[in-house]
């Protein structure tokens, strides 16, 4: 018999429940309020009192209301049919909810029980299997969706029978396995998993090394992220976090994209709802929505399920990784999740850490980022979760707890900068403060010299040096005046501007410029670096500016033209002519 309880106290969404039996930390409980049931999670237990956070508004709740404990933690349901869905933080299918408004207490089953899937067996009777072993596969939006032995299974099992190739629903039995004691267990296509626990069914987790192409030059060329890598984008409001994140999720070369819209604007999620079914995946030509799952807990949706939303998204990502797929997970924004933790910790009257955040905040963040990664599955296949989170630092100050905690955990840092945004230099990623630790990995370097060129890394390094030098020179010019420095200084500064305008800046709203292939990035970097390595002769500093503005103008026109199209080639000829005027 399951444990029952009654409500004893209410402060906002923290409810004290007197329980009549055993209660588990993080157990899910339902509170009966009139005809509806409110879902809640146990946060703390003292004696027979459980403190639960309710995922919905507690308006009207009374002392004496009945509570039912479920005996399990917050779980997600995993199976074919997750793709293209729009879920809330607790995995309710938003499209199935009736009415314009989100009525509390309305929960639904996240998958479709009636859809028929074409099942192809991969295992045979007699095979010895364990958690995560592939039993068969169905095709989900043109991707192979593996049906696996539930992750919760411990030890090894023997396959007794597997269903024949054919059409099945997710509820139909597709395999029977026998455990060590000789007991038969029937399996269908779905399984459940508690979101707070990482799914660890891989054999090895090596350092990631494969470049993940995003089409964003300031990432791919300057500070690349890799398949299975982690990165974060902090930035004050208005610096283009969301535009950059949407660009990555549209363009990245991933099989599955999971987007957790965590405590941010509803209209931004609506933008994904509207655009993704319409836009093409640049790599496969299919619609973007086909590879995307959206977990939406926007800022006006219940705060308590904000935390759940990122874990739900990560668990779904891990599920697809276990099928040997490349998953990209984005969370916007992890600060809102941290704030939800703060609100709860505050109500529980825990001693606060810095800025009133809970003391273990950075441990929670580090633990979450560690669930991403590139893995070798036990059958030798590989899979990856690349995780990019945004951070919304209070007051744009990067010395706050969420940014600092994340900096310790994530390997790529894309610092969005107010002054670049003010000058409309988008994406406003500061090229000098930002970094990618992956550049230093020898595994990455050997990979990149194979897919791009052996000179690539040193070329990128040279470019960064010029940017750095340009910044220093610019400061000197500002102090000493245009004519207070040698003409050479102006040339150095304007070379860095050529890099800035051509490579770093990218128009996310222009059809051509928005996404740049690796081949094109390589071509443009060579072109720009040839200019930067050339020697020029000028009579005075005024000429330098006028001349480089012309150079930049032509390079920008190239960026707006299709790669190696007649216009592109014509502008390149123009460029050669301009360069011939002044180079020595």
């Amino acid at each position, binding site marked *: 018999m399951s444990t029952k309880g009654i409500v*004893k*106290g*209410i*402060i906002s969404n923290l409810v*004290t429940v007197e329980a009549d039996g055993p209660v588990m930390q993080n157990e899910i409980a339902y509170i009966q309020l009139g005809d509806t049931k409110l879902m809640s999670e146990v946060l703390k237990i003292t004696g027979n009192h459980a403190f639960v956070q309710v995922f919905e*508004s*507690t*308006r*009207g709740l*009374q*002392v*004496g209301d009945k509570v039912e404990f479920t005996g399990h933690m917050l779980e997600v349901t995993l199976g074919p049919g997750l793709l293209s869905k*729009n879920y809330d933080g607790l995995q309710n299918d*938003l*499209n199935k909810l009736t*009415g*314009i*408004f*989100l*009525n509390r207490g309305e929960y639904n089953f996240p998958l479709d029980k009636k859809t028929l899937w074409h099942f192809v067996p991969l295992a045979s009777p007699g095979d010895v299997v364990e958690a995560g072993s592939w039993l068969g596969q169905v095709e989900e939006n043109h991707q192979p969706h593996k049906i696996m032995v539930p992750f919760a299974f411990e030890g090894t099992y023997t396959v007794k029978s597997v269903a024949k190739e054919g059409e099945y629903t997710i509820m139909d039995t597709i395999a029977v396995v026998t455990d060590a004691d000789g007991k038969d267990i029937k399996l269908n296509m779905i399984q459940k998993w508690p979101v707070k626990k990482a799914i660890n069914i891989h054999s090895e987790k090596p350092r990631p090394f494969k470049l993940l192409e995003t089409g964003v030059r300031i990432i791919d060329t300057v500070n690349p992220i890799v398949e299975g890598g982690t990165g974060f984008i902090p930035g*004050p*409001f*208005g610096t283009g976090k969301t535009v950059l994140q949407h660009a990555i999720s549209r363009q990245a070369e991933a099989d599955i994209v999971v987007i957790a819209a965590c*405590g941010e*604007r*509803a*209209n931004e*999620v*609506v*933008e994904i*709802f*509207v655009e993704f079914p319409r836009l093409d995946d640049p790599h496969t030509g299919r619609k973007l929505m086909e590879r995307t799952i959206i977990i*939406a807990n*926007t*800022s*006006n949706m219940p*705060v308590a399920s904000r935390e759940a939303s990122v874990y739900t998204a990560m668990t779904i990502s891990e599920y697809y990784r276990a099928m040997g797929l490349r998953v990209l997970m984005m969370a916007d924004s992890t600060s809102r999740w941290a*704030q*939800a933790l*703060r*609100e709860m910790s505050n109500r529980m009257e825990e001693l*606060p850490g810095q800025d*009133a955040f809970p003391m273990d905040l950075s441990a929670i963040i580090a633990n979450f980022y560690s669930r991403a990664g590139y893995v070798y599955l036990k059958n030798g296949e590989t899979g990856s979760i690349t995780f990019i989170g945004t951070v919304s630092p*209070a*007051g*744009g*100050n990067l010395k706050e707890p969420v940014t600092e905690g994340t900096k310790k955990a994530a390997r790529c840092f894309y610092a969005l900068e107010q002054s670049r945004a*003010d000058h409309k230099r988008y994406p406003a990623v500061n090229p000098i403060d930002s970094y990618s630790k992956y550049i230093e990995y020898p595994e990455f370097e050997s990979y990149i010299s194979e897919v791009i060129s052996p000179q690539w890394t040193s070329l990128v390094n040279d470019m960064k040096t010029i940017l750095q030098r340009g910044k220093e020179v610019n400061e000197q010019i*500002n102090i000493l*005046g*245009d*004519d*207070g420095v040698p003409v050479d200084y102006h040339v150095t500064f304007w070379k860095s501007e050529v890099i800035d305008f051509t490579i770093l800046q990218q128009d996310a*709203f222009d059809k051509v410029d928005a996404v740049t292939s690796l081949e094109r990035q390589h071509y443009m970097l060579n072109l720009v670096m040839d200019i930067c390595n050339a020697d020029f002769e000028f009579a005075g500093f*005024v000429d330098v*500016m*006028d001349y480089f*503005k012309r150079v930049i*103008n032509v390079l920008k*026109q190239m960026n707006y033209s299709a790669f190696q199209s007649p216009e592109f080639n014509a502008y390149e000829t123009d460029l050669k002519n301009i360069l011939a005027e002044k180079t020595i």
Partner: protein
Amino acid sequence: METKAFQKIYTKITRITKATCSLRATGVGNEELATVDGKLAQVVKIQGDEVTLQVFSGTEGIPTNAEVVFLKKSPTLKVGEQLAGRFFNSFGEPIDGGPVVEGEEREIGGPSVNPVRRKQPSELIATGIAGIDLNNTLVSGQKIPFFADPDQPFNQVMATVALRAQTDKIILGGMGLTNDDYLYFKNTFSNAGALNRIISFVNTTEDPPVERLLIPDMVLTAAEYFAVDKNERVLVLLTDMTSYADALSIVSNRMDQIPSKDSMPGSLYSDLAKIYEKAVQFPEGGSITIIAVTTLSGGDITHSIPDNTGYITEGQLFLRRDSDIGKVIVDPFRSLSRLKQLVIGKKTREDHPQVMNAAVRLYADAANAKTKLENGFDLTDYDERALAYAKDYAEHLMAIDVNLNTDQMLDVAWDLFGKHFTSTEVNIRQDLVDKYWRK
């Protein structure tokens, strides 16, 4: 509030603080309303049989034997067409001497719209002000605040925007409004002959501060009635959200909560988001657009209130006095409308996005030139031209007294480019230059 026969009356208050009082009571629901000594109060905490009530107008003069009556409901507003043209206080009671509004009684602070039931905003709101329409185009269903110091004419600009915009209803939520500003809005709207489409909920500086916490929910409940039930386009004006946040911090302080940054409650972000996220465009045509005011202290936008607001709203508008022309302009650097991408170049002329960016970039060049000038350096010919351009740009486009349609604004911008620069200096896509450059 009349007492009904079956209601139990409590007369033993066990604890009184500045804003709350506690008593022993049973059968009480969370967030339920009550009257304490005739004053309206709301349940904020229940611990066993001890119930804590927040008294909106403060606890001054409440004795321990005061009558406490629970009303068995949370705060509500009666909605109907009759709301139009009326003025109310924080509790939804008329303050214009008119009759009480009859209509369907709705709980305020209701649930959020399911995101999949929203439509992507796509209707431009024209204001005639180039600082807004050209650089920071507003879209229906958007939420955007003015970030302004108290001495800036934000209420005037907001009233102008409200009256010029094509909307069915304008709902004003005044929080901590001075009596003078309240009368300003009243007179401006009535002089424009627009009173019949305006509804106001006002808490002035004369009223208790905690009462104003009800204002946004009252306003938005009325707004949802017109937008959902009547498919109308509703424009909500909220001024001043800083007063609202201050009231939040007063309450949280009195509830012994641990303050986070700037003594604001840790839940500030969620509290503000719940209000601003009511802005919505429905597929059936109804919409709620929110224009708010967040007053700053000395232009500091890193303070918790503007900072959290900036992360929630879809952009922000800054006003600034331009010393070159002696007029107030909409600051082209710091202002931003996030939804403009949905309409510019689509609902407006194709050259809009590029012209807008080029114009601001050139204005930035002028700002650099000005710094050089202030530091005593010689200016180049380009610097001189940029400065001349900046003055024209402020005067003919950015000033808040400009009233043009977008095509005219774009034409003015091309005129200014042609007057001060060569076509290679503006960095605009060649096909647009070919088409629009003034020869």
